[in-house]
């Protein structure tokens, strides 16, 4: 069965950190990167993320597929932005430095290029951190991390359950598809869109009904063990915070603070504007 969350086991300080501190760092970092449109700041984050990658001993070869996927996604998004709104940069920065005219309403401006640079850098600054989190955090530790950062343990537990049952449901889906194909149901690209939708729901019906049974079985088992009786619970994967964990959380906080300072005092807004 394919490992969907791409956890790669290595020995590195980043792997040794608790999932909770990495999650805090990830959330603060992505929020900081999301709110600022300052290319200098975003580029610094990108470089910092590369350094963290080096420490984690995750190689580019490990994540090549995901990087490729993200790159295409990012490219399409940029293309779409330009197609729909070639003057978006001008609207944001309030000035217009034309480079050359393409055709019709499409004119390349410096402002637009800066905006696209920002969008690119936003991906470059956040994607490595998300990948780092995904490749260095054991999914089964993830749930206890959620609980650690203040998510109600019942909700955290349902995330753990979801992660636990994804492979099972995936296998079941696969089995149902194979048995349908054995009976001659066309599911490949050759069938029309409507026909594929119909066969897809044909596959789903048995999957859903067996999942509904599963819900009964699991919740009965949990109730028999008095799940949810107490206000708190302990976690098998619980670990104590170390200096690295505090370091990671401080780093996340620093990123967010710098982003806020840049927005509030340096750039007087979310955008770094070199055109005024």
């Amino acid at each position: 069965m394919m490992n969907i969350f791409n956890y790669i086991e290595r020995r590195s300080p980043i792997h040794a950190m608790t999932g909770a501190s990495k999650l805090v760092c990830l959330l603060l970092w992505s929020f900081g990167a999301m709110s600022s449109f300052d290319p200098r700041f975003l580029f610094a984050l990108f470089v910092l993320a590369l350094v963290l990658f080096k420490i984690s001993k995750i190689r580019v070869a490990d994540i090549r597929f995901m990087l490729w996927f993200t790159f295409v996604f990012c490219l399409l998004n940029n293309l779409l932005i330009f197609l729909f709104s070639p003057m978006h940069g001008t609207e944001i920065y309030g000035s217009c430095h034309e480079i050359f005219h393409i055709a019709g309403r499409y004119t390349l401006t410096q402002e637009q290029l800066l905006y696209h640079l920002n969008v690119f850098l936003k991906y470059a600054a956040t994607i490595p951190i998300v990948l780092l989190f995904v490749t260095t955090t054991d999914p089964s530790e993830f749930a206890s991390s959620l609980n650690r950062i203040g998510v109600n343990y019942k909700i955290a537990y349902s995330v753990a359950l979801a992660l636990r049952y994804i492979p099972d449901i995936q296998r079941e889906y696969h089995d149902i598809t194979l048995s349908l194909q054995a009976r001659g149901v066309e599911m490949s690209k050759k069938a029309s869109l409507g026909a594929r939708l119909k066969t897809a729901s044909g596959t789903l019906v048995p999957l859903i009904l067996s999942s509904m049974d599963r819900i009964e079985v699991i919740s009965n088992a949990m109730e028999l063990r008095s799940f949810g009786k107490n206000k708190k619970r302990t976690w098998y994967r619980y670990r104590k915070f170390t200096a690295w964990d505090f370091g990671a959380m401080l780093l996340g906080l620093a990123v967010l603070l710098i982003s806020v300072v840049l927005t509030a005092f340096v750039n007087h807004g979310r955008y770094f504007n070199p055109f005024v």
Partner: protein
Amino acid sequence: MKNTPVKSIVAIAIGAALFFVCGRFVAIPSPVPNTNISIQYGVLALFGAAFGPFVALLAGFIGHALIDFSYGWGIWWSWVIASAVFGLVIGISKNHVKLATEKFDGKRIVTFNIYQIVAHVLAWVVVAPILDIVMYAEPWNKVFLQGFVAALANIVTTAIVGTILCVAYSATKPKKDSLEKK
């Protein structure tokens, strides 16, 4: 049938897992980039109608966040939240559709579909684009077009897949007055 909290927790988990599997492995690409024709909303609609807003909201949120995590393109919070909003709105239909106790036909199918249309429009034409503009400062005409395409595709798929699933699920539940005294 009373929904105990434990049952809701498990329903959230299985709902999120199904959402994930359907969204990740059964995706049929649409002509507009970054937008798939996704049958997972049919599943989420069934969970909303069967278990209510709380379960569907969290199942949508967790399932969508897990999909984004597994692709590694970063979490696109605006769309994750939109999925949660869809779950919340379709979940309100639970008390009108009454999958567990009443027969799912005619009027109830229409009610269910009106709910899912409203939920999709709210999620993809209102919530997702506005959050995209606020969070990522994207051009409004691009995000609204993406929203419209997503809403339209999702409404059609949910109308087909969701309705079929609800009919199948409802058929497995014993109905009120299904026993006759002779």
